[in-house]
């Protein structure tokens, strides 16, 4: 009898060891510890034995059952730890399910980046309409009466108003600056605000020139501030946009609505300032004109130039976006071409 039990134990343990999955495990469990198992049969056949023998065999049987149960538990734990929810392994190289496509225009993205930066500096966002008048686009801004930009070779005048003057001569705004006087007339000073938007010029287009392009202008009007404050602002903004410190320089520039006016160049990001095709081999890219608001403009806005001063910066969004991504043709921005737009998710 003892030998038989020994044999049951060895065979049983072997069966447990050979179990490959949960189903087999359950079968083996039934087989080894169930009512119809060999161990049960041994117990049933004990009636012929003496009491002492019964006692010994009984203990032995229980002991083997415990061993089986322990081993089954260990086996089960092991199986759970290594079992997959999948019946079959899957191809892990198949691409995942697509998420919803879609994106903002790269210029909108840049505009929002700048908005975020300027909002953190306490600037409001203001928007002027696309169509303005000669009064707001030129007269208020100290453009001389015969300034060439007033000609139809430069500015898109509306049919029927092109031969009129001032407030009656209407155009697609050639720049954003006219909005500065509109804002100041409405809200007064001190003021700090940005006014992004599209501007329109009668030009011949090529990879570097467009008839419709986007600008981003910022203006501060306050008492006793110096133009050098503009520099900090520009540096802060560029750093925000490009994620690192960008070298800049200010140089002489002339605009009717500023005195003094300056151009702000940033180090060319394509060549790191060494000189390349993009920067015309001089290492610098002109990104922002700016300057101190001309006293005549402040007067147009109803402000006393002896009391108030301030400065503009005007960022060419198209050029900045071109720099950001290395875009080489400005006309792509208005092409509505998805092959282009899909790159800016």
């Amino acid at each position, binding site marked *: 009898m003892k030998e038989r039990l020994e044999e049951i134990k060895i065979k049983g343990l072997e069966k447990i060891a050979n179990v490959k999955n949960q189903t087999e495990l359950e079968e083996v469990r039934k087989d080894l510890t169930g009512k119809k198992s060999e161990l049960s049969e041994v117990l049933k056949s004990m009636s012929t034995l003496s009491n002492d023998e019964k006692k010994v065999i009984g203990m032995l049987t229980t002991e083997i059952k415990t061993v089986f149960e322990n081993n089954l538990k260990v086996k089960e734990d092991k199986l759970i730890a290594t079992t997959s929810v999948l019946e079959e392994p899957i191809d892990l190289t198949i691409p995942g399910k697509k998420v*919803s*496509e*879609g994106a*903002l*225009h790269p210029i909108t993205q840049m505009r929002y980046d700048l*908005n975020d930066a300027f*909002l953190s*500096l*306490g*600037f*409001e*966002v203001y*928007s*002027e*309409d*696309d*169509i*303005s*008048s000669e*009064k707001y686009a030129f007269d208020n801004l100290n453009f001389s009466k*015969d300034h060439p930009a007033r000609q*139809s*070779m430069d500015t*898109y*005048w*509306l*049919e029927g*108003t*092109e031969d009129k003057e001032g*407030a009656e001569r*209407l155009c*697609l705004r050639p720049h954003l600056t006219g909005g500065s006087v*509109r804002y100041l*007339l409405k809200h007064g000073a001190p003021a700090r605000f940005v006014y992004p938007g*599209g501007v329109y010029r*009668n030009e011949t287009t090529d990879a570097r020139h467009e008839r*419709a392009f986007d600008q981003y202008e910022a203006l501060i009007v306050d008492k006793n501030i*110096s*133009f*050098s*404050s*503009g*520099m*900090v602002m520009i*540096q802060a903004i560029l750093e925000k946009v490009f994620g690192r410190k960008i070298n800049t320089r*200010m*140089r*002489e*520039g*002339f605009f009717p609505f500023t*005195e*003094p006016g*300056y151009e702000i160049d940033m180090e060319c990001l394509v060549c790191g300032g060494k000189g390349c095709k993009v920067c015309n081999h001089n290492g610098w890219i002109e990104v922002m004109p700016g300057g101190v608001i*001309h*006293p005549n403009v402040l007067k147009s806005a109803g402000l006393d130039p002896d009391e108030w001063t301030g400065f503009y910066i005007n960022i060419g969004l198209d050029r900045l976006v071109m720099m950001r991504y290395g875009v080489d043709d400005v006309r792509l921005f*208005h092409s*509505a071409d*998805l*092959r282009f*737009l899909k790159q800016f998710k």
Partner: protein
Amino acid sequence: MKVSLNLIKKYVDLPKDLTDEQIAYDMTLRIVEVENVEKMSSKYHDIVVGKILEVKPHPNADKLRICITDIGDGEPVQIVCGGSNLYEGEYVVVSKPGAMVVWHGEGEPVKVEKVKMRGETSYGMICAASEVYLSDFFPAMDETEIVDLKGIDCKPGDNIADLIDMNDTVLEIDNKSLSNRPDLWGHYGIARELSAIYNVPLRELPKYKLDTNLPKYNVEIKDADKCSRYIAVEIDGIDTRKSPMWMKSLLSKAGQRPINAIVDITNYVMMAVGQPLHAFDKTHVGGEKIVVRNAKDNEELLLLDNNTIKLTSDDLVICDEKDAMALAGIRGGKKDSILPDTKGIVLEIANFSASTIRKTGKRFSEKTDAAIRYEKGIDTQRVDQGLNLALELIKEIFPDSKIIKYVDVYPNETPKNRIKVTEEFLNTRLGKKIAREQIEQILTSLGYELSYHDGEYDIVVPTWRSTGDVTIKDDVMGDIARILSFNSFEAKPITITVEHAIKQNDILLNRRIREYLAYRCGFYEIYTYPWIDEKYIKAAQIDTTKSLKLATPPAPELSYLRSSLIPGMLEAISKNLRYYDTFKLFESSQVYYNGDYRPSTDDEILPIQENYLTGCIVGKNAKDIFYEAKGVIENMARYCHMDNIKLEQIEKPNWADVNAYLNITKDNEIIGSLGLLSVQVMSSSKIKRTNVAMFEINSCKLTPYDSRTNQYERLPELPLVEKDLSILVDESINWKAIEDSIKSIVKEIEFVDEYRGNQIPEGKKSITLKVRIINEGSTMTSEQINEKMSNILKVLNKKCGAELRVE
């Protein structure tokens, strides 16, 4: 404008250790942007004088010759050449191997190599003028003519750059960036600025001792507003000899082709001091009298190129006793030309008003150098600089010439502007205190005169800055700032106050909508032009009666400005269909139409300008894309935090399908539309083999929430029971009827699916819906659920004739 540093250095002693690049950089930061720095000699490397010792025929080519040439390198070399004017003993220009030449004067420069030409070795080439940038110096009669250096003092091996004075650096400046600085249109003006930057003295211009007792030339100025000064000098002993090499060289470097000495002198003076001059052949001035007057309407002037120009009374002309000879300050006529037989001249040095020149100049597509300068506004005192320099040069080049007559008619002198500037103003606006000595040095170098009392400068502006450039104290401050360099001022931080926290709900709403469409609904944002191709306006059947037009559109078909974003979208769809079958686009822009809109002052009446939003979904299955677009609009309010908008069918937009359209309304006003594009619109805008669902909203009508307004709802204590139900109804029953019929007896109702097919009887459709029900107070038993469901069915049957669909 091109600036020769050699000429600059004639007027100012620049610090010795300065590189040309540094000068260009300093100019860029402080005066005007230098676009290009060109070392002139670099174009002429390995190009030398050669002497032809022997000319032999080429054994294999009739048109080529073999020239044994001494190029100063010891042994003479053999060069094959096809020039038509080769002779023994001729001094020629030789490009040695390594030199860069422009083949036949066209295209990019290429490198000269030692080659075999038809079997004969050629050590470099003997060049024509156009091949080695020498056309200005040795103009050729035809293209086979090579440069003959006869009469030039030179020997074999001499560098050509030395011969033509090309050891110079030329800085290029964009004319546009000089438009506000009439004083910088000559080298002397730029030299003056450099003297201020480097604090070195500026040399005086030559002074010619003119005999003031000379007989007077007869000059009459009819309109002194247009001509403030006119000097005429009659000079004999002039001819059309060539200029000396140094002058030719300077003109060539400045981009001016040398012609003859007298014309060259006028150009040189203009280049040096910025004062235009004009020389008339004295015999062409009828009656020895010059009249400066307004032209008569329809008066004609014959130009040098034999074209006639019709004049108006706005034009100012220079006339002799009888006829107009020249357009004042712009260009000469045929009559006044200097010709080979010219023996004497009348030299004009005059000042014409900027506005006159600008007005007349517009008539010509190309501006002359004189016109460009006059229209910037030149001071009348500049005439003296021009006169003195011109007479000096004439004396030098025509030593036998003689001044016969002279007159200076001078009705108006340019006054010097006077400006008072306080020290305090300068300190505040510059953001730092600049020492008085430094301010005085800068301003004095620039030609200002100034005195200082009690914290205030009394400043007299030089005449050359008084023609409009410097008028107010800010201009003076600007001059100081730029000469010191804007970069030398420490940037002052900007302060922010907490009270001025910004929240602009309108601006934010527009951003939320764009982000919702792009990032949640999968649309790509596009930008289109405000001018719209008429083809697409017609296709979209947009009414143009209130539309605006451009006076000078980019193209004839692009004259309308958009009054709707739909046409631009149609164009974008048709273009993108070349590459994609399914896509979603949107645009948020302004549209315009006639109306009365006064955003600022009352005198300004603008057209109506409104922000619109349009979007499209392009795909094959019309029904799917319609419902997708509908979902986009339905969910917009919720996701973008704005007041609710509704969809109802009221009025069909022109572009929409006869059935599938809805109007977008808010407070009972139509603010937009949604629908499938009609077959007609698709066919006329070349949108083929697909369908388009489109929407357009006047986004000005959307109202953002001031804050988040939806209320939290307590979580239900008891579970909701969710049941799906498939019913059969007549085709005529719409979802709205079904929903309305049981809305009040269920907690929630949701559309799941609509189905027509084999199993469904004709005229019927199957609708699957989901309802959620709940019992107040206790969990529903299965009996209660069954009872509720059968009640729902009963109501559906009664109100909509619905039957439970049996599988």
